[in-house]
């Protein structure tokens, strides 16, 4: 029984990681939004499977909330913002695609080395997915650092949140509900504020690439 559960968990987390990697080689923002959408769906699926196997009603509620928030609300807002400014191409990022893939590969390896004590300690069946979650966290950090479009950075940040949620689910079957709700609230508010700022950047800088934001120095 547990083997099926753990295999599904590992499958889910590896799918999440792969969607994360899509950001690295695709160039259009549209592709990023779809990648994020699918990643959130897979994450909701993983949470649902854990809820099913662990028979924990709270997790179902969390999965539903996750699906609603990250599956529907945020992608629609992203789509609206994307249409408003036309299909923008991601500028040439600081690091070309080949090197970014290499770096993210190294980061995932580093995540595996790092997660060794975690996997050794955990008795939960889903422990095999923890390094993948850590890998997603490092990759999304790298994405935020290396991309030039503000919108892409926001999507990178959202993927970082997905990675952490995945780690929480795989490692501890979900953190206490109070904190979970707080995290979702923060995520939503944070995203809304970032959107406001992107609109404001558009107004004052006429384009939303981060390269222009180099005025404040020393």
């Amino acid at each position, binding site marked *: 029984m547990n083997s099926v559960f753990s295999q599904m968990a590992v499958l889910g987390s590896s799918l999440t990681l792969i969607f994360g990697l899509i950001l690295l080689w695709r160039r259009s923002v549209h592709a990023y939004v779809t990648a994020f959408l699918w990643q959130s769906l897979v994450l909701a699926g993983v949470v649902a499977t854990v809820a099913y196997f662990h028979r924990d009603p709270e997790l179902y509620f969390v999965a539903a909330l996750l699906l609603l928030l990250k599956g529907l609300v945020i992608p629609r807002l992203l789509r609206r913002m994307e249409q408003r400014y036309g299909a923008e191409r991601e500028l040439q990022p*600081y690091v070309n695609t080949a090197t970014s893939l290499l770096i993210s590969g190294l980061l995932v390896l*580093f995540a595996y*080395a*790092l997660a060794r004590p975690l996997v050794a300690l955990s008795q939960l069946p889903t422990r095999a997915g923890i390094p993948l979650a850590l890998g997603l966290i*490092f990759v999304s*950090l*790298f994405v*935020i*650092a*290396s*991309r*030039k479009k503000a919108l892409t*950075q926001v999507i990178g940040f959202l993927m970082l949140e997905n990675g952490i949620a995945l780690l929480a689910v795989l490692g501890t079957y979900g953190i206490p509900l109070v904190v979970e709700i707080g995290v979702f609230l923060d995520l939503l508010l944070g995203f809304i504020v970032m959107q406001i700022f992107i609109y404001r950047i558009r107004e004052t800088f006429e384009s939303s690439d*981060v*390269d222009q*934001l*180099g*005025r*404040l*120095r*020393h």
Partner: protein
Amino acid sequence: MTPPGVLVAGAVVCYLAGALAAFLSNDRWGRALGALGAGSGALVSLGLGIAALTTGSVFTAVLGVLPLTGLALRIDGLSAFFLIVVALVGVASAVFGYGYSASYQGRYSLRRLGALFNLLLLTLTLQVMADNVLTFLLLWEAMSLVAYLLVLTEHDELATIRAANWYIAITHVGFAALLAMFFLLSAGDPAAAFDSLRANAPALAHRNMIFLLALFGFSAKAGLIPLHIWLPMAHPVAPSHVSALMSGVVIKMGVYGFCRVVLDLLGGGPAWWGGLVLALGVASAVFGVLYALMEHDLKRLLAYHSVENIGIIFIGIGAGLMFQSYGLMTLAVLGFVAGLYHTINHACFKGLLFLGAGSVLHATRTRNMEEMGGLIKRMPRTALAFLIGAASISALPPLNGFASEWLVFQTLLGGSQIPQPSVALIMPIAVALLALTGGLAMACFVKAFGITFLAIPRSRAAEEAHESPASMQVGMGILALACVGLGLIPFFVVPVLGRALAGLGRLPSGAATLTVSFPLSIPGTFGSMSSPLLAAGLLLLLGLVPLALWLIGANRRIRIGDTWGCGRIGQTPRMQYTATAFAEPLRRVFAELYRPTQDLSIDFHPESKYFVQSIEYQTEIHPWFEKLLYQPLIRLFRQIADRVRWIQAGWLGLYLTYMLVGLVALLALAWWAP
């Protein structure tokens, strides 16, 4: 409250009342009350110092006022002596300040000057009584801050601000060294009261490091080479009665701190300690006087002389330390006594000279000697006071400078008793350089007094100079009397100082360590000298000579004529010797040291090159401490700063990369670290 306690409280109350009064009103009354507060506070602490020094009683008090370890005060012999030094110059400059600051009425805030002056005296008085690390350091920094603000009184000139920046920078570097030193000394004991430090000093681990930090920190305050460059910048720009107090007393806190830590708490150390202090003292003495010679800004000249005299004080202390390490206890005590005696003498005559310079500045609005002259006829009493100061700083016999310099010479002569000949050879070199310093000091003050006060005024301002008000003369008078008085009573001062030093660290605690007969001859030393008899003899002869002339019926008529000028008619001020010309032979002799930059520009008459329209001679001396030591240091820090500034380069991607790299690095560290 024991009588000393009452006096301490009295002094503190006087100062605070003076400060408050000065702060509240910005007019004559403010000045008067401020000066009154400072003067009375100084008098009370003078009485306290004399009482404590003569009776030898030790007064201690611990008040829970300050945080952490509280305020601890203790007056022993050393503190009492420095109390007298503070009070003596304090009274004089307070009285002088009342008259002098009148000219600040419209231009600068009198409130601030009066209040800060009182606070400076307060911090100085308490500083010498500090008995635990926190009190000492808090008062030390408070003193530096108040002195810095006082230096900034005339803040509309750029030179003042530059000087104040240098002053607070070097003082704070010194403070950082002291902070480190005191905590090494207290070796982890948080209470850090001085008597517990004294107890476990012998068993300390890093005694040499503590000594070096103490030397660095206290010489930053005292103005020893190479940490002296703030002194000739800060003292001239401060108001004169403040620079008198700073030059006379504030830099002596460096001497007090050094004695307190190295003599009292550490109890002396190996011979090279004394050797290093002696070497620094000699270097400061020689360089101080050499650079003073080339100055023609009156107050900068006096400031460089402070560096010289601090050097002489540290020669005495360094010699004392060396003797102590070789066990020659009498000579050691003599060395410290000579150092301390020169401390109070320097406080008196340097204070007097700065007040004199202040009076000249008050009258002629300029510090440049080339624009002065003939002031002796217009300001006779200031001239007399300045002359007494000049004579005593050049160590001329009947006055106090000679008494202490004679003692320093005798100490150095005692060096011949040091067993190792290689070490004993340092002493004659020190004697020679000290004598050279004395000679050059005399030359410098002949220039200073001669060019400023004698002959014909060189500018309109000097011509219209008038004698300064009564309060300034009284201030100068007090210190002039002190100079003459201290010169006449060395036979009384030396044993009292010997008692003050008794029991400090490893010094023998016998009451009369220095048996001194009526003429100042100390067993184990070489010469004997009696100032009072000398002064009496000179006065007698001065009286005898005119009497003899009258007896032999010498012609007593005097006719006023013109100065001989090889037959030309009339005399203009431009024909007189100038300060630069006066010092020119010595600049040529020490040219290797000064490396003067000289340029001569002659524009000839259009018709023929044999006639000259004007010749302009320009010479500049840059003290090479700044060139070789401080400029490279500043350039280094500027370069580092430029590189570090680029960390904040403005690119968001770069900032996030810093975080990612930081995270990965720390994770790797946590993962591999044991």
